[in-house]
């Protein structure tokens, strides 16, 4: 029983990272209807930002969790201006191939600049775990879970109360309508892409706390984020949260009771089953 609960907690902490990545993807998807297949690389860039801040400026990776947000936001706005905006009205094939090209480009740029060796950051907080009724939870996992929950709450509040947040909801519901009532749709797009990128970047900063990363780590997070979206239904925030934690827990239990080699396969099987039997996802709702 203890092992089972332990597995659940590990799953939730991995799920926290999945939720954060997927929220970024679903935000971009919902507002702009743009499929960013380079979203996984935003996770990698976030993780490398945290690594570089530590390596050159000796900034604690826990502080970087916050610093990564504005840095990746600006990076996202830059990408939106340079790459996304010119192809917003182009075919799906164009967007798909373009963002895959971007993904290869970022991967190879990172491995050219920093080699493809694994990079990690030392975490000064003792790995020593807190014990809750017999279940040992490492402090870092707790921090990740808490941070993800805080992010989700802040995002929900922002979408409900924030001016830009309300604009984003409006644009996701009806793009033309939003334009007609005078919302600057391009600004909203920029903001949404920046915010989505920042969320993926934070997930990367969370990830590097728990494991060493390579330039190629992002690709799997792209797949995981899409699995989460498919589980939860594209464009649904509640769905992304549910799907993220579900995927984390299922993977963790698979590693615990079957074999660690099959962890990634389970996600793909879930993806195929859901896509074939319930293509709208378990929560097929709009943002």
């Amino acid at each position, binding site marked *: 029983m203890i092992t089972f609960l332990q597995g659940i907690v590990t799953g939730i902490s991995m799920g926290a990272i999945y939720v954060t990545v997927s929220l970024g993807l679903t935000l971009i998807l919902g507002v702009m209807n743009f*499929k960013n*297949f380079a979203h996984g690389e935003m996770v990698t860039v976030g993780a490398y930002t945290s690594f570089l801040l530590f390596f050159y400026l000796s900034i604690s990776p826990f502080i970087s969790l916050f610093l990564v947000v504005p840095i990746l936001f600006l990076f996202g706005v830059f990408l939106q201006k340079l*790459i996304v905006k*010119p*192809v917003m009205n*182009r*075919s*799906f*094939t*164009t967007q*798909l*191939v*373009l963002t*895959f*090209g*971007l*993904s*290869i*480009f*970022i*991967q*190879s*740029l990172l*491995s*050219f600049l920093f080699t493809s060796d694994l990079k990690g950051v030392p975490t000064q907080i003792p790995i020593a775990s807190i014990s809750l009724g017999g279940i040992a939870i490492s402090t870092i996992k707790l921090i990740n879970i808490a941070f993800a929950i805080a992010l989700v709450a802040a995002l929900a509040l922002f979408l409900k109360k924030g001016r830009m947040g309300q604009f984003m909801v409006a644009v996701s519901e009806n793009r033309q309508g939003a334009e007609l009532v005078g919302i600057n749709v391009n600004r909203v797009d920029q903001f949404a892409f920046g915010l989505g990128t920042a969320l993926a970047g934070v997930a990367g900063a969370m990830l590097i706390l728990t494991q060493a990363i390579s330039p190629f780590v992002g690709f799997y997070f792209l*797949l995981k984020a*899409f*699995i989460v979206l*498919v589980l939860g239904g594209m464009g649904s925030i509640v769905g992304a949260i549910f799907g993220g934690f579900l995927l984390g827990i299922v993977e963790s239990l698979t590693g615990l009771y079957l*074999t660690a*080699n*099959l962890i*990634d*396969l389970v*996600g*793909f*099987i879930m*993806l*195929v089953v859901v*896509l*074939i039997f319930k*293509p709208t996802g378990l929560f097929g709702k709009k943002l």
Partner: protein
Amino acid sequence: MNSRMSTKNLLQVVVLALLALTVLVVPYLGNTYLIKIVINMCILIGLAASWNLVGGLAGQLSFGHAAFFGMGAYVLAIASDHQIPYPVAFLLGGAGAVVLSCVAYPTFRTSGTYFAIITIAFLESARLLAVNMEWVTHGNSGYIIMDSFRSNDLFPYYLIALIAALILFLTWLIIHSRFGLRLRALNQDQNAAQDLGVPVQRYKMLSLAISAFFCGVLGAYYAKYIGFIDPESVFSIRWSFDMIMMSIIGGLGTFFGPIIGAIVLTIMSEIFRLTFPSLSLLAYGALMMAMIVFWPSGIVGLFERLSSKFQNQKE
């Protein structure tokens, strides 16, 4: 109109003739490096032409084709352990890929983003299975192929040229058949094609099976030629990216697109490998982005535009 068709045909004949000439002349130069490049190019031409049937002609942007290639390679590896003669093993490799493509059939219930993601998931699942089914595949430690081709022999060179030529001939037949026309129709408007009586799902499946068969045979050849395979090398998504990239450089859905794309990609990657090897992947990504944004219809499309412009000026 007529004269434009003939300029286009002339260009096509010239490209094919140059290709055939290169393939025939290279062995006499006695340069093993050149021979290796041409072998590699023939594999790529075959792969791009087969991917193009599904990705270009029928418009189903598959990222999973590397799985068929890998399947063919592993079937050959296992077959050669059982002393099955390699021509049979090549066909078995193709057949294995066709079986795998039947498993992939449900992916056609999706389209667009979902299709792209589900085909990647399909490929990654195949790779993970190859890693984990150690009793069949030897897992990550890889598979050494018994009696692989000796590389200083010219026989594998002519063999792959023949295989690539056969695949090209068959894809040419398909593209210019009624079947090809209907695939093109369902690419442009699936619902309209369905209303006009094209059995959409069956046609998509058929095109996938044919394309998988070719990829499987090429995978089997690759294994026999290289002599060592592991899941990382044959189930790599790089193969899928290459197929997509070559079709786009040349021109999606056209017969000549994949050929031209494969030639261009081979030459470019050799140039980069010799000059800035560490930057080759970087250039690959940049080129992929630039091509799709500026030249979405590829070199064939560009040529068609230029020749029609030229025609208009003359009139």
